[in-house]
């Protein structure tokens, strides 16, 4: 019986201590950020976030997803700030009142990757639309993200410019009682060579590498997979440098008028820190195996 009493005396305070220490430290200085797989996979955040904490005391919880899901997180108020790369959709996000302001942080570019034997013969092509059209003409395997991400948005826009006939697949669902459509465009009669896998950039690169296929990737993730790992990949850059392939990244604090619980002030502070000279300098100097991944917007 004595033992039991002791347990009863010890355990509640222990739980109380655990609760206090588990929840308390700096809770008010933590913000949640939804971002794209490319910023996370590139390793840039691992450099920026510790410096941010040193300067401002803000800690960031990162949730990496496709751009579509990251924006949805912002719309639902699940996060305090979003850091994504799909400019038009970001502007729409602000116009609809979900975000307060877009801070242009940095940019890099997309590249079209392909197997070294280049079955479609597009190596060195500087026009991205022509390169894609070449792939379609040769019916060479092409792997699409198909996950509503920023890269996917860019790919869809690129196909529109190629002149290749497109097929639009629509799925009807109900949203708030009203019929809504989810659209998805892809080249016509491409079942045999256009594969949409609905996964993140890294997985897509691995998939394309396995299947000797072409794909569209942001340069950062490509460099990470090509040079940043023990086991390299065979994919090479086939097309780069087209201005259409530019890929600007923006950070947007979620509007506290829509979602009163978001930590707007901290998110704002975080966003202004990202465009401060120090952060911009860090972004410029971030190298992966000697390759610059991102270019500052504000430097």
């Amino acid at each position, binding site marked *: 019986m004595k033992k039991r009493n002791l347990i009863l005396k010890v355990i509640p305070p222990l739980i109380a201590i655990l609760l206090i220490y588990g929840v308390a430290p700096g809770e008010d200085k933590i913000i949640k950020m939804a971002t794209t797989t490319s910023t996370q996979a590139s390793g840039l955040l691992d450099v920026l976030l510790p410096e941010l904490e040193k300067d401002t005391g803000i800690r960031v919880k990162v949730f990496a*997803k496709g751009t579509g899901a990251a924006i949805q*997180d912002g719309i639902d108020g699940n996060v305090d700030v979003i850091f994504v790369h799909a400019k038009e959709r970001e502007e729409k996000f602000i116009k609809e009142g979900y975000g307060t302001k877009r801070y242009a942080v940095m940019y890099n570019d997309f590249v079209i990757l392909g197997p070294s034997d280049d079955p479609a013969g597009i190596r060195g092509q500087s026009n991205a639309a022509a390169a894609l059209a070449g792939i379609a003409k040769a019916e060479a395997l092409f792997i699409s993200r198909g996950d509503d991400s920023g890269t996917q948005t860019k790919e869809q826009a690129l196909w529109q410019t190629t002149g290749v006939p497109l097929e639009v697949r629509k799925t*009807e669902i109900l*949203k708030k009682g009203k019929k809504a459509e*989810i659209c998805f465009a892809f080249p016509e009669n491409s079942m045999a060579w256009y594969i*949409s896998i*609905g*996964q993140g950039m890294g*997985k897509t690169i691995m998939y394309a590498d396995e299947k000797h296929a072409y794909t569209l990737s942001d340069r950062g993730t490509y460099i990470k997979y090509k040079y940043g790992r023990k086991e390299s990949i065979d994919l090479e850059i086939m097309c780069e440098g087209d201005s259409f392939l530019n890929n600007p990244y923006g950070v947007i604090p979620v509007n506290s008028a829509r979602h009163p619980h978001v930590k707007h002030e901290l998110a704002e502070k975080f966003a202004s820190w990202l465009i401060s000279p120090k952060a911009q300098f860090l972004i410029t100097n971030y190298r992966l195996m000697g390759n610059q991944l991102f270019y500052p917007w504000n430097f």
Partner: protein
Amino acid sequence: MELLTDSFLSAILLIFSLDPEVLSIVCVSLKVSGISTLFASLMGLPLGFLIAYASFKGKRILIICLNTMLSLPTVVIGLFVYSFISRRSILGSLDLLYTQKAIVIGQIILVLPIVATLTIAAISRIDERYRKTAMTLGANRRQTACVIFREARFGIVAAVIAAFGRVIAEVGISMMLGGNARGFTRTMTTAMALEYDKGEFILAVALGIILLVLSFSINLIFHFFQGRTGT
């Protein structure tokens, strides 16, 4: 609540509009899970039968090992199979990765222990007297086995149901080995994971509802096979 009602109505809409995308996903799911369950049963039922009736050294250890394999995570199986069939490994030239065959291989490894252990359990429960009676009545080994199988059919069909339920609900192996390619290896679970990633929760939940409805109808069929024993 809105999410649930919207999802439910969307599920109905998807079923009745015979959306080609959804149909293809459902077909892939059923085909892959059906084949995996079939092969796992073809191997697992005799295996379970043998283990239950044979007496050999290390039988208990073998059963414990099989039971342990019940808790194999799908990610581990996925990684294991991946390391054999990726282009840079020994079976790379077969070009198996990201095909339905790859999913089937992984899923068989996943449910073989389920079928085997549940069969062992079902058969061990059968009274020894059935075997003895059958043999005294002049049944040969094969006929005796049939008698026991018949008596244990409730438990054996339950093993197959459990296996099918596990593979159709599984997402790790399908994602890692199938790669979620639209129209080829996109199953209901990987499609749900994708719609969740895209932020299309309604479509994700709608697919979940369709999966449950399908499972229910398939279990109705199984129930018929199971007979009236034990109900």
